[in-house]
């Protein structure tokens, strides 16, 4: 096995010997997800035009915002062949701290609150990263532990206290309502985040190193990639984004307290997986994860809009996740076969 070259199955690189640029675009793993989303929206709109009314679209985008930001962060971690189960708890702590800040320091500038929330998230994410890299312990175990610990800290700090929308300045709450050119402000923030991270992952050295680490950690290490630093970076970024999501949560929803954010982790991982991020790491893009997040949040709204019995919603989401995994596997096998054939032809 040659060092430094990831095995063919694990790369997301489209076939460079493709007959046309269009064919290679179509082979991108994000395509099935985007197509599914477009199909879903179209069908639902035909059934209930209110689905895409101004309020309806705004709701769709707003609902997706927080999930998109979380999915982007989680994608970075999953790509390095790790996972972070504690994001729900991080979001909860940051959301509650936001509520506390507004009450404890009246008149605090909103920007400062954002920075504080993101800093707290970064701190918690870095703790995860340190435990994973320094202690060399599997991230599933560590983040399961920190899921409990952070949740417990949130409970201990908050107790029965809850802060409501009225405790926060209306300008802060208005962030989740105001729009710019039809797009809700916070959705624009999410889109900017996606673009920044996507460019980072695709074009910068550290970003591409994350893929290498996820494809084959030993090879990456022998190749000279500072694995520890990169993985720490992934967890740190995930933490910052979870912090950002926590602050936005406090802006959009009414109450923040001890149980905020419980149970989010599986939804976010599902969103990333549906968006083409392979759970074994090494492939997938944050754009795909964002689209996956959008798809999952849209599905619940869509099913409600066509008055599908709400009891079917969770089952349908489950089927969707399974379908995404199967499609992903089929696509990967076909890409691998094509690469194998093309390399054989070149010899």
């Amino acid at each position, binding site marked *: 096995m040659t060092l430094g070259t990831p095995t063919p199955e694990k790369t997301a690189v489209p076939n460079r010997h493709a007959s046309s640029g269009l064919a290679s675009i179509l082979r991108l793993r994000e395509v099935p997800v985007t197509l599914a989303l477009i199909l879903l929206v179209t069908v639902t709109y035909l059934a209930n035009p209110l689905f895409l009314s101004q309020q309806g679209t705004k709701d769709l985008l707003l609902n997706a915002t927080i999930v998109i930001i979380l999915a982007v962060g989680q994608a970075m971690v999953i790509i390095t062949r790790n*996972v972070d189960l504690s994001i729900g708890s991080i979001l909860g702590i940051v959301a509650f701290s936001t509520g506390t800040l507004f009450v404890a320091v009246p008149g605090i500038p909103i920007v400062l609150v954002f920075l504080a929330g993101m800093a707290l998230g970064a701190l918690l994410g870095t703790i995860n990263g340190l*435990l994973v890299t320094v*202690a*060399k*312990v*599997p991230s*599933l*175990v*560590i983040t*399961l*532990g*920190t*899921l*409990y*610990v*952070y*949740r*417990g*800290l949130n*409970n*201990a700090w908050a107790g029965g206290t809850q802060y409501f929308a009225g405790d926060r300045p209306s300008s802060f709450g208005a962030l989740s309502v105001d729009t710019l050119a039809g797009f809700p402000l916070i959705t624009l923030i999410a889109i900017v985040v996606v673009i920044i991270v996507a460019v980072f992952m695709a074009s910068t050295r550290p970003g591409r190193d994350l893929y290498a680490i996820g494809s084959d950690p*030993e090879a990456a290490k*022998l190749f000279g990639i500072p694995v520890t630093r990169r993985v720490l970076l992934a967890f740190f970024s995930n933490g910052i984004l979870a912090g950002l999501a926590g602050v936005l949560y406090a802006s959009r929803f009414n109450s923040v307290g001890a149980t905020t954010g419980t*149970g989010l982790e*599986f939804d976010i*991982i*599902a969103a990333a*997986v549906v968006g083409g991020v*392979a*759970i*074994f790491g090494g492939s997938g893009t944050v754009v795909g994860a964002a689209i996956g997040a959008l798809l999952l949040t849209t599905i619940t709204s869509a099913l409600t809009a066509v008055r599908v*019995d709400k*009891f*079917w*919603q*969770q*089952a*349908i*989401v*489950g*089927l*969707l*996740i*399974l379908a995404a*995994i*199967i499609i992903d*596997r089929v696509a990967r096998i076909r890409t691998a076969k094509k690469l194998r054939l093309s390399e054989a032809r070149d010899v």
Partner: protein
Amino acid sequence: MSNPPTELLPTATNRSGARTAVLPQAGGRIGLARILLSRDTVMIYALVVFVIFAALFIPRFASPVSTGFLLLDVIPALLIALPMTLVIITGEIDLSVASIAGLTSALMGVLWSAGLDIGPVLIISLLAGVLAGAFNGLLVAVLGLPSLAVTIGTLALFRGLALVVIGDNAVANFPPELTSFFTSKIGGTGIPTVMIGVAVVAVFFGVLLHFTPFGRGLFALGYSKEAATFVGIKVMRAKFWLYVASGSVSALAGIYWTLRYSSARSDNASGLELTVIAAVLLGGVSIFGGKGSIPGAIAGVLLIGTINFTLRLNRISDVVLIIVTGTLLIASVVAPSIIEGISKWRHTRRHRRQLPQASALGETRATASGVQERK
């Protein structure tokens, strides 16, 4: 790179018997030290110590009533932990166990209120668990899809089906003879009667894992799927049947839950999967696969269950339990890693001191050996 003299390679000392005892890598101990100090037995000690401590210092703990309540609370997690151990040892995972239990519970409720006899209700519900497990097995073992992602999907799917089946309703009118049997105790000991059944299941899985070739094959599977295939282990079949077992036992847990609380609801056993996994990992099962034991897993479940129980007994908030569980889990995996790291550091330092050439060649050798040791 030319072969350095063998005395300089710390890894070479692995293979000679003399140095093994000080080798810092996991599994490097031999003999009695290996059994008595391995993760699982440490957990068993911790459990015994805690139980004795609780019996002596916590009022009202040492009584048949306590034992009864504790065991009744712990049984679903205990049951599910058994096949979960085997699944994790093979390097896979099953997150859908709680949803299968919930689905079973929902089915029981619907079938019972539709008028079926309790016998067919139980059988059909158990069958549903078997089928759910087989579905998981099909996707993971036969199609080879990643188990973490698949079981997140089936977690949602089966819980969703439970909602479809029973909706928002709750069924509570199960035959009183049956429900009181499930909470009955053996004589004056306080041990619930159903523990006999649970013990049977535990013995079954314990024997399967530790005393049969199939079980040994599972450990091999966890180390290396390719090597296991070459050795002749039928990987696909083994994993498939493990998932079927996981589904069936989850169904048993769901049946127990429904009849113990006399309540069939779609959200029964919600969130149980994380508790079971945390307990099993605490009990010494390695998430990478290839390492673990049934007694260790049982100890992990009982330890968390006992701590939970004593906290509740003293009306200490669940908050403390949550923090304790998380810290225990982190500490239990980080501590061995840190200890290993420290002894490895001491080992390298000792070798560097002992070898005269090393001081001249200095860092290069150390790095080379460091890389090789880290594998």
